[in-house]
């Protein structure tokens, strides 16, 4: 069983602190995505795990072993790079066999292992070609083959799909999920694409500014974002984020959002606000209902995408993004009734960005078992 642990890991490049202090515990067999905008420290985190960067402080463990001072070759990991990093002067066969050669696998055993990896990824007919004779998708599979040929403890993947076109990316996503299920290995996957993270991961570590924002299952992150950053970052289209104020009225919290008064369920918040509390409110596009309710909204823009449409509306000084069924007939300029699903409204402290909903502490199911 192979766990991966970051214990108060800090990384600074000279004066610039990339990662102030990272704690992350990855369970054996997990598929964890490090997700965040560019420059959030996710690639640095992965490279530290690979041994390509030295942490400034803290401890990184693979299994029971502290790997801080181990060379990449001693960590028993495999890595797939965004650029694939195939050795241009070697054939596909030599590329895949290279890690075997470097790890002293007897020459006689290598062909069978290369063949097995090639079969798994349907690379058989390409074995004697050079990387430059392959398409992007094929190169990607060779890079995967080179990573999995020697069955490492941990797989590291650094944005491996970002150079593929959309169709191939969707295909490779499915293949990676399948591969993870079949191999049952711990995988750490870096991406800035939330769709990849949501579809493939058992858990997602959302990062921003070198700090871990939330580490939870995709469902948890989607339905219970831990702070305003996660709320704004996850979901396409993004949630509507707006400033509001909460006061208590006869034991029930009342949210004033723009000019809209919204009575929230009594147990909606984890703490009772004293007086007026300044909050940031986030609402998913699908949690806003159109054609019902007492609020009046003005339609600004309709973006049909086929099976659904994204509608931008204004209600009570707040601009909402709404997801509606594709067959809904709406015109810009129209005034329509609108309602919010109160129990799904996310409330965050405006200063700290911390989630105030009472449901945050909800238990998370075993992330690994949930896939099988």
């Amino acid at each position, binding site marked *: 069983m192979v766990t991966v642990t970051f214990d108060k890991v800090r990384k600074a490049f000279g004066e610039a602190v990339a990662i102030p202090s990272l704690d992350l515990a990855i369970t054996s067999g997990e598929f964890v995505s490090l997700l965040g905008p560019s420059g959030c420290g996710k690639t640095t985190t992965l490279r530290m795990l690979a041994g390509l960067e030295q942490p400034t402080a803290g401890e990184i463990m693979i299994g029971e072993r502290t790997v801080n001072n181990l060379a990449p*070759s001693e960590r028993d990991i495999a890595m797939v*790079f965004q650029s694939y*990093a195939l*050795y241009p002067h070697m054939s596909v066969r030599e590329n895949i066999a290279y890690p075997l050669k*470097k790890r002293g696998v007897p020459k006689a055993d290598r062909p069978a292992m290369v063949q097995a990896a090639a079969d798994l990824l349907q690379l058989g007919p390409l074995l004697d070609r050079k990387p430059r004779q392959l398409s992007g998708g094929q190169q990607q599979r060779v890079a995967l083959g080179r990573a999995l040929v020697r069955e490492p403890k941990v797989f590291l993947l650094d944005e491996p799909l970002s150079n593929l076109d959309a169709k191939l990316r969707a295909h490779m996503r499915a293949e990676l999920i399948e591969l993870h299920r079949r191999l049952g290995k711990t995988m750490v996957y870096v991406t800035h694409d939330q769709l990849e993270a949501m579809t493939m991961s058992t858990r997602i570590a959302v990062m921003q500014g070198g700090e871990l924002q939330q580490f939870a299952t995709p469902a948890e992150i989607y339905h219970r974002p831990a702070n305003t950053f996660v709320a704004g970052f996850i979901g396409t289209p993004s949630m509507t984020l707006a400033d509001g104020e909460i006061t208590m009225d006869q034991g029930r919290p009342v949210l004033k959002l723009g000019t809209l008064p919204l009575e929230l369920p009594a147990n909606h918040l984890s703490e009772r606000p004293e007086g007026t509390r300044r909050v940031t409110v986030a609402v998913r596009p699908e949690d806003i209902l159109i054609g019902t309710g007492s609020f009046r909204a003005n339609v600004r823009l309709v973006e049909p995408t086929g099976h659904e449409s994204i509608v931008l509306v204004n209600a009570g000084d707040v601009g909402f993004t709404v997801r509606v069924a594709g067959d809904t007939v709406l015109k810009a300029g129209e005034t329509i009734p609108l309602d919010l699903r109160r129990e799904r409204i996310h409330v965050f402290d405006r200063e700290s960005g911390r989630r105030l909903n009472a449901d945050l502490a909800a238990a998370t199911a075993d992330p690994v078992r949930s896939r099988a």
Partner: protein
Amino acid sequence: MMPARRSTTILANLVTWGLVLLISFPLIWMVVTSVRPQTELFQIPPTVIPRAITFEHYIKLIEETPFLRYFMNSMILATSTTIVVIVVGTLGAYSLVRFSYRGRETLAALVLFTYLLPSVVLIIPLYLMMVKLGLANTLTSLVIAYTTFALPYALWLLRSFMAGVPEDLESAALVDGASRIGAFVDVILPQALPGIISTALFTFILAWNEYLYALVMVNSDQARPLTTGVMNMLITSFNIEWSLLMAASVMMSIPLIIIFAFLQSYLTRGFGAGGVKG
């Protein structure tokens, strides 16, 4: 339109070939003179195409003069210089490209700074140093001297080639189980090979053609390379052995002509890399 364009083409061709002829005339004259019998040499009017062809000068050169020794010296000298420069230059360029340490850029700039000093200025100090080291009058002293001016250039040329090798390749090799040296040998060297070859050629040619250092630092026949050896042997205050001199010149050029013929594409690549990125 068409005739005008054709006449421009013809004119351009004429000018080009005229230039080629002008530049190559001394070379042609060198070859022709080297196979002309002694009797025909100072004939007036001179003949462009010799009436008889003889190889006596070549035979005389090889059999009766230390030409072959000089040739060997030059070979040893150019080859050793190339090996030293390539080994040190490749590792140095790799370090400049891949590692970050204090003063890295300053070091790279200082290396180039050595070019600001005319080599004449350095000859005497270098010679005195060689005397102190007990290396005066040896091929080794020339190898060291040539390295001092060939290495900076090689370092900059190789640096731009190394910078073109993606860092991910090396990271991949490290993760795949290679040591740093292993990754360097398995991945970086093959990728930088065209650059290394072209740098090696430049260095070889530089060392092969060098005259000034050889003239000052070596004055024994044992260690003289071709450039100074041939001059010393055939040009005296009283007489110039034109036929032998030309034959020697032809033979001196042959290694370089062979190199140019076979490895021309590497040389042009070297010019490109040095020019664009260096």
